[in-house]
């Protein structure tokens, strides 16, 4: 079947989609967006977290057909969604780099989407709020302390969205390329 949806602000179409296929598979294998990671395929790990009509969900548990006509934001769209030009990092992405919150990197995209959503809802979250918001994202490197630091850092720099452009500009340069490699 054919599925049409808006992904990171652009209309996209996928053809020959199997009816039992997940949104995650469509994003990664049909639309060339491998940022959302495929790990547990059962909603346990949060590595595939995307926003569906603004709400964070596990893309592995959304049937592709359910995304028809919906709005999807993946980790690839966080910076542009915040009004930043191509190649720039969003505030949360920048904070993860600066705080050393990225180890193997596999859980990072899901954590970024979840953290971005938290800061959009609550620019000044308590530690308990951060833990709760990230409780559906597993880091098997167990790098949680640095991840919590990163979210605190992003919040201290002014939360999510374009407001953090200034924070991102501070240290723009060498690390951009590395972070996105």
């Amino acid at each position: 079947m054919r599925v049409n949806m808006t992904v990171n602000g652009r209309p996209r179409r996928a053809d020959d989609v199997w009816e039992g296929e997940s949104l995650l598979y469509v994003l990664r294998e049909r639309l060339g967006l491998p940022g959302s990671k495929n790990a547990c395929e059962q909603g346990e790990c949060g590595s595939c977290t995307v926003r569906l009509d603004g709400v964070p969900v596990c893309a592995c548990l959304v049937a592709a057909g359910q995304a028809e006509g919906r709005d999807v934001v993946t980790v690839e769209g966080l910076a542009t969604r915040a009004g930043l030009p191509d190649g720039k990092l969003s505030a949360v992405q920048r904070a993860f780099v600066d705080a050393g919150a990225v180890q193997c990197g596999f859980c990072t995209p899901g954590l970024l989407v979840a953290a971005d959503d938290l800061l959009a809802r609550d620019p000044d979250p308590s530690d308990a709020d951060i833990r709760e918001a990230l409780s559906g994202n597993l880091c098997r490197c167990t790098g949680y302390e640095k991840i919590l630091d990163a979210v605190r850092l992003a919040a201290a720099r002014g939360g999510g969205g374009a407001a953090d452009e200034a924070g991102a500009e501070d240290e723009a340069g060498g690390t951009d390329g590395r972070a996105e490699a």
Partner: protein
Amino acid sequence: MDFLRPDRWEDALAAKAEHPTAVPLAGGTDVMVEINFDHRRPTHLLDLTRIRDLYAWQTDGPDVRLGAAVPYARVIAELSGPLPGLALAARTVGSPQIRNRGSVGGNLGAASPAGDSHPALLAAGAVVEAESVRGTRLLPVEDFYTGVKRNALAPDELIRAVRIRKAAGPQQFAKVGTRNAMVIAVCAFGLALHPDTRTVRTGIGSAAPTPVRARAAEDFLTAALDEARCWETGRPVPPAAAAEFAALAAAACNPIDDVRGSAAYRRHAVGVMARRTLGWAWRQYTDGTTGERGERCA
């Protein structure tokens, strides 16, 4: 596999009548796991996410009529007043991502004995609206669970809504698991005080082939509170009565040994949770507090 995508409830019922093997799909938190792991290859997936009625709730006399697909996140945000037990249970479901998608209707459809909403529904009192092109059936939730992952739905029926009795008194919920998030219950317990009828109701999760009420425990405690004139005086539940209530709740279990816990552990833990939830709820009833869980109980 066919993907059916009705926009209206009537069309969903017609599709289910025409394709009784179609699997209803809303949040996908159970069904998509089975498909991803090749445990299930239904002939048809019946996507219900376009039917707006399923995402609405209304107050209906003494009940809240909860649309089958209202996600847990909204139960927590919007219904913790009239449905405090269900809202507490909803907080323990999966993770934020799962609570944004999973629903009470899905919990009932899956009918896993470990479903988090079941103990709260049993304790509050709830009726499942099962609908087909033939009409509507109203099934008391205790009659809805018929076996492990089996329910009383006919092949052409869909769950339209759940009518849950609004709380007339404090309700509590407890769940045993290895951590606070992403945990399938080892076992769970729901308790509701009903001061209007001076009764107590319970629900046990994941400690029998189906979710069950601990009826002997309910009857015992209802009589004990009456005899000790606890409802009118607000005096504490006699410790011996609380202990017997816990023992009867444990005796209502029919658990198995599995990877999450042993039968003996489950039986023991249900007794502990029964005593604790009674302590929390009774404190709320007598002094109007929120039943702070940090405090010690009976």
